[in-house]
């Protein structure tokens, strides 16, 4: 092992961000971000699944017959997701209720399948582990950002605690309830993409 290849962790955070650049895993990213806590739990679950599935697939990559690789990947990912789901139900039942079907949908989350296909199938286990960590964190960054913006402006709280002082409300400030509605998640992701591409011209589309 010639040291850790930091590029594998650093690139997915900005230049190859799974959500804004590779356009993977949008489905779950938007639905769970109305509040910070579920967004954070979801991000954590995806990190766990993507890291371990990358590692496992990479370990057995030479023994998987290429024709049935998709189904092998699906089975391993589903097993990990079932584990995560049971753990969430046991320890943070309220959040698991809020996330409802979206924990199960990690199975078809394109980040997991995409990284397995693109990276873990032809790279060494340790590199795949790092790639999983990087992409998981890249996904988590966007999710948590969205969660913070939407909860702060939508309900005036963060992690369930009031952060906007009562005096603001007395002066006539109101929560923007559109923020916690689904459409705003889409528009916010659009704006995040806009800002990121404006700062990094290489990412612009023709």
């Amino acid at each position, binding site marked *: 092992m010639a040291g850790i290849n930091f590029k594998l962790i650093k690139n997915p955070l900005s230049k190859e961000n799974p959500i804004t650049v590779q356009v*993977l895993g*949008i489905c779950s990213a938007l639905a769970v971000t109305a509040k910070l806590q579920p967004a954070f739990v979801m991000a954590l679950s995806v990190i766990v699944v993507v890291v371990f599935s990358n590692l496992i697939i990479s370990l057995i990559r030479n023994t998987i017959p290429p024709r049935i690789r*998709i189904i092998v990947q699906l*089975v391993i990912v589903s097993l990990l997701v*079932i584990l995560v*789901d049971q753990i969430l139900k046991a320890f943070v039942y309220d959040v698991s209720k809020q996330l409802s*079907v979206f924990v*199960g949908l990690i199975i078809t989350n394109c980040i997991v399948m995409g990284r397995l296909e693109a990276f873990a199938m032809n790279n060494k286990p340790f590199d795949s582990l790092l790639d999983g960590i990087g992409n998981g964190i890249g996904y988590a960054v966007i999710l948590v950002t969205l969660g913070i913006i939407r909860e702060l402006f939508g309900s005036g709280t963060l992690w369930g605690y009031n952060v906007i002082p009562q005096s603001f409300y007395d002066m006539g400030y109101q929560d923007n309830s559109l923020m916690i509605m689904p459409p705003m998640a889409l528009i916010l992701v659009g704006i995040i*993409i806009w800002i990121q591409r*404006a700062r990094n011209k290489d990412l612009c589309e023709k």
Partner: protein
Amino acid sequence: MQEIINIFVKSIFVDNMIFAFFLGMCSYLAVSKTVKTSMGLGIAVVFVLLITVPLNYLIDNFLLKEGALAWISPKLASIDLSYLSFIVFIAVIAAMVQLVEMFIEKTSPVLYAQLGIFLPLIAVNCAILGASLFMQEREYNNIGEVIGFSLGSGLGWLLAIVGIAAIREKLRYSQIPAPLRGLGITFIITGLMAIAFMSFLGIKL
């Protein structure tokens, strides 16, 4: 019967797969460049939903749920296999997509040529697994309601992807700031469409 129609209309407009739950966004964004291809993918999604969701409903009710095995023998009534539902559902979906593909190839080569490339993609479309999981969570009463729900969700998805594809075809001639071109503007327009669909909230037949 009225309940079924209610669920059907509700899952097209109010609980729209894309605008309310963001399911199937990946293929929604990737395949919505022209109306023709998005129509093909949309029809394939309707088709697969209509087969897999009722099938998963039967499996859930007769094999997985707590007490579901009681029809084999009363001794099995205490078994609860619902933790297996993710893996069973995804296996059913993958297998059914394969079967549907082979069936269409044999019976209707024209349809196969149109859907061909999209069918395998559908196995990992979140909308399909999502619909099965919603079906499980919302606890529909009978198979009629489940069929109404799956047809409605499929048509809702079709409506959304054809709509955005038509807008994107026109967008090609617009002056959009470079960083917003492509992905960014698609997101914002989808957001605006979702706001429009919010006007259906509260409809009850």
